[in-house]
């Protein structure tokens, strides 16, 4: 099991459409709209790095996504 944060930047005015498309995707644990340097933070849960690549590919192909930044989790502590 591989988990990763995918930080997404969208073009202005496309946030709502991108979110709707994003919610249809699989292998996603949570989606958060944030105020800061990024617009959307997605937490992904995949079985292999290849699946992670497929997921980021799918996100890239959503119209309105400007840039993504994937952070693969090496170690995690959760309450």
């Amino acid at each position, binding site marked *: 099991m591989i*988990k*990763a*944060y995918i*930080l997404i930047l969208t073009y202005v005015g496309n946030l709502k459409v991108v979110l709707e498309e994003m*919610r249809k995707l699989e292998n*996603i*644990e*949570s*989606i*958060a*709209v*944030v*105020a*800061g*340097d*990024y617009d959307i*933070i997605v937490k992904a849960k995949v079985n292999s790095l290849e699946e992670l690549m497929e997921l980021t590919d799918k996100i890239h192909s959503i119209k309105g996504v400007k840039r993504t*930044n*994937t*952070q*693969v*989790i*090496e*170690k*995690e*502590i*959760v*309450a």
Partner: protein
Amino acid sequence: MRIRKKYLFYVLGILSSAIGAIVTIIDTYISVIYVKDPWALCLAIFLAGIIITFILCLILSIPIKGKSIGARIDPSFRKLRLLRKKELKYHLAAGIGNATATIAYFMIISLYKDPSAVLSFFQIVILYLLLIESIAEKNAPTLAEVQSSIVVTFGAILSSFSLKGEINFFGLLVVFLILNPSWVVFSIYQRKLKIMKIDSCYNDSINIRFWNLFFTTIFTTIFVYFIRRDAFYLAFDVLKYWYFFFISMGVTFFSYILYIRALGLGKASVTQAVKSLTIIFSIPLTFILAKITPVIVFESITHAIIKMIGIILVVLGVISFALTEVKAYIFIKAKTGYAASQIIDKIWKIKGITSVAAVAGRYDIIAKARIRTLGKGYERIIRALEKVKGIESFEWQSILKEWEEI
């Protein structure tokens, strides 16, 4: 049959609160009809409870297809195990807390004979947790916190009014000075046990429940023996009603398990809000109880309305308390020369941090925080982060909206 996860969560949460209400009704029924002495009843219930819980835990330890039944409820559960040395002091404290709270609970039940009011009293615990937090951290509570805890407290007092419109001062004294403080002790140490690691795995709730009950029974026995010697002997006499106690404690155990399962599916705050529905469920059950026993729940319409208003305030207060929160992601870059694992441990100790992850990419660590207001986030988290050595820079990203897979 397949249910969507989201509905499963609500089904489990609501089922757990409904069962919780039924337990209180059973307890009231026993205390009104069979065992009028609260001390004896409390001891007898624990003595029978430890047996039935032990049997249920053994059943949960049975492996089916390489995985115990209990592991399907709490994934960290393997089987019933012996106590570890490092758990002992927390279990001792939680046991004293639970024993005191339960004796107080049965005293109140025999005083008020109204389950819906008694369940409201438990919610005042919010007020105490808030007070402790303010004193321990020199951190002023937010308006929303003060508001909802006052609403809950006043609601509970309203629902405690007796038939003649009098306030039972002795009862309220027990509620404020014994029941809730000891309940706070119990919940604080229970939480400490839950986040403890056993064999590099999180502590499981089924073992915690069993061992807590074990120590609670010991402490209850000691308390009753030294404070009310006559009730101590009476308790063994009333053990002839063991089937009632088995039902009460067995059902409590299932309510607890369903709650844990719901907690694993949904967010703790939402689960807590759903759990406060117990009070609502207890209202119709209280009416049924009033039909089959000589208990009179209310005398006049005015009295009923006052009680209802009290109960609504309690539920509203708990829900609003549970649901006001601000969440944020914090992206952290570490300085070279510092071990990431050490920085993670330091960040994890900051209160309000719900998860920390070491990541490979532009940042080194991503943490998630949950606080009541942004002001508190500054006080608690940003100031604490600035003190952690090895952090080069961090970015705060407030979450505006969130979807979670549950």
